[in-house]
């Protein structure tokens, strides 16, 4: 009888200890719907790499401590295939695992498919996308990692106009929201500067752009903007249009990816005169971040420079979770995020913007850079200050 009572007490104690452990454990699981296949995969790889890095950094440096317990942070990535249905499906799968904190997705079609599922499942997210409705008052727990071309296309076009003479331009982009939203914004900015613009759209999945190149050549465009065409597609377009004899400057007023564009096109010589939006100005701070990544992750950082923006976004999310004191209450985390200043240890201070363009002040704005290749030679990046609505 005594032995039985002792076993019961011991069992209860062990069970209680287990229960206490379970209650106090803090395990943050971040969902990452990222495009990991297809011509836009480079963007998704940058997103995944940045989030995994921030997860590791958070644990190593005990940056997330809730109720006195340092949280473990893990990342669950699912290929969102750069489509609305792919992102919706990936987000549903993440929701089924009880994940409430999301970093991603990248593209406009993905974000369109993502938002309703995320809102329904009460998730808090940091998304990209250059769509005109990337964020909005309808989705109060969705934040934007940075402005689209409405924020930075104008200064890049101005640099182009200073260096090259052109009065006509062609814009080529996919014929879905990921292309049309960006191309139309870029077209307006070109037109404001007196440049006549023709817009060319193609079906996503096109591999031979020779017919579109023929159309562009027939339009006598003096400059070309690749807008948000995925880097793989953009590389083929550049290769084929240079073969066709196009000698004008080429703008890339969409997501970054110049290295891959150059690789597919056949090198910097083929790019010749090329201007693009670069998410960060590479200085000692950015190089320090690269080194930190290498030290923590044991490999070089993902090639696409959107890696930096995703790193700042994921860190911001961790800060918001810390401030909210919860890992699974999306509304609380979002509320905490709104009160935090836009600031990162590597890039410095930025602004919350978005009220004018989206009707909600949930877009982070940091300094960025303008990339220039002139005569096939990469020029030093030009630093541009963060866009502000003040």
């Amino acid at each position, binding site marked *: 009888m005594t032995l039985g009572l002792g076993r019961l007490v011991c069992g209860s104690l062990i069970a209680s200890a287990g229960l206490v452990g379970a209650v106090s454990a803090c395990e943050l699981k971040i969902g990452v719907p990222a495009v990991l296949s297809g011509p836009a995969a480079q963007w998704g790889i940058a997103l995944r790499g940045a989030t995994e890095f921030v997860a590791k950094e958070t644990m190593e440096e005990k940056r997330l401590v809730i109720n006195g317990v340092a949280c473990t942070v893990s990342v669950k990535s699912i290929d969102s295939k750069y489509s609305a249905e792919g992102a919706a499906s990936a987000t549903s799968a993440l929701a089924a695992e009880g994940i409430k904190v999301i970093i991603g997705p990248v593209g406009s079609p993905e974000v369109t498919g993502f938002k309703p599922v995320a809102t329904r499942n009460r998730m808090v997210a940091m998304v990209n996308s250059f769509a005109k409705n990337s964020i909005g008052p309808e989705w109060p727990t969705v934040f934007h990692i940075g402005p689209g071309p409405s924020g930075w296309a104008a200064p890049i076009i101005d640099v182009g106009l200073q260096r090259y003479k052109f009065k006509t331009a062609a814009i080529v982009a996919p014929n879905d929201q990921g292309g049309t939203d960006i191309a139309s914004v870029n077209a307006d900015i070109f037109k404001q500067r007196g440049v006549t613009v023709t817009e060319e759209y193609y079906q996503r999945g096109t591999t031979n752009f*020779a017919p579109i190149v023929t159309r562009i*050549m027939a339009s006598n465009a003096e400059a070309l903007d690749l807008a948000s065409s995925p880097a793989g597609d953009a590389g083929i377009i550049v290769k084929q249009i240079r073969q066709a004899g196009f000698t004008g400057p080429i703008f890339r007023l969409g997501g970054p990816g110049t290295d891959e564009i150059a690789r597919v096109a056949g090198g910097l010589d083929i790019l010749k005169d090329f201007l693009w939006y670069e998410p960060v100005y590479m200085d000692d701070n950015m190089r320090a971040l690269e080194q930190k990544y290498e030290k923590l992750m044991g490999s070089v950082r993902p090639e696409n420079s959107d890696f930096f923006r995703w790193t700042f976004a994921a860190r911001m999310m961790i800060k918001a979770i810390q401030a909210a004191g919860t890992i699974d209450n999306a509304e609380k985390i979002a509320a905490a995020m709104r009160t935090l200043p836009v600031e990162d240890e590597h890039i410095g201070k930025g602004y919350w913007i978005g009220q004018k363009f989206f009707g909600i002040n949930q877009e982070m704005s940091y300094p960025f850079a303008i990339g220039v290749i002139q005569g096939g030679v990469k020029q030093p990046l030009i630093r541009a200050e963060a866009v502000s609505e003040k």
Partner: protein
Amino acid sequence: MESFIATGLIGISLGTQYTLLALGFTLIFGILGVVNFAHGGFYVMGGYVAYYCNVILGLPYPFAVLMAMLSMAALGWLFEAFILERVIEDHQATLMVTMGFYLVMATAILMIFGAESPQFPFPVTGVWRLGGIYFPYANMIVLGACLAAIVFVYWLVYRTNIGRGMRAMSEDLPVASALGMRTKALFPFAFALATGLAGGTGALVTPILALAPHVGDSVLAFSFLTVILGGLGSVTGATCAAFIVGLIEAYAAVYLGGSKGALTLFALVLIILVVRPQGLLGREVRRS
């Protein structure tokens, strides 16, 4: 006028590439009765084999193309002989097996080479120009190679005993088998020929366009479209349809725009199939 001629060159270029792909696709269907959903995978893998031989190992490009053809033919032979042959009588199973094999190939490429496009330049650069008409030398060489391959396939199918055997099996499998045609040898041979063509096309075309793990998806779609239009199983139908598809795609895209070009192509194919469901040169009923 110049852009009209330039567009015609683009259409013919596309047509020859589609012909090579569609010939393999239609050979497999005509002889084995299998819709090969792995066809795009052999195209991509052929491109990667050529890339590996040429860029990584530094072997001459023509040798890399040859290696791509031979390795894809060998892979196709093994796949048919050891996997597909076991389920050849079950049409649904063959669909699933070929689709599954495509996913295996695509994932293997992704794991080995990564999702990003490698730099795989065509060894010949430069462009031929005449006024506003231009044609890259690389495209000329690929056009010539594709035409040579098409001639070879026609010679093989219509002028050799192996070809006669394949056509006999395509016409009436039970009778051909009763007359001594060896399906155990000819089935894998036909499959290897088709996958070798796909691999060779991948090795030739990916350096002038782009090499990436996903490019097989559109190849499969266009191969399927072409053979449906030409008539499943018809070699001549596939050839005619490939050029029709290539020319319509080019002219519609140039004169109507990229988006409307694709729409025109698919709408036209839809109309043709409504009027002639068996395709341009297909038969109404497949007997084997």
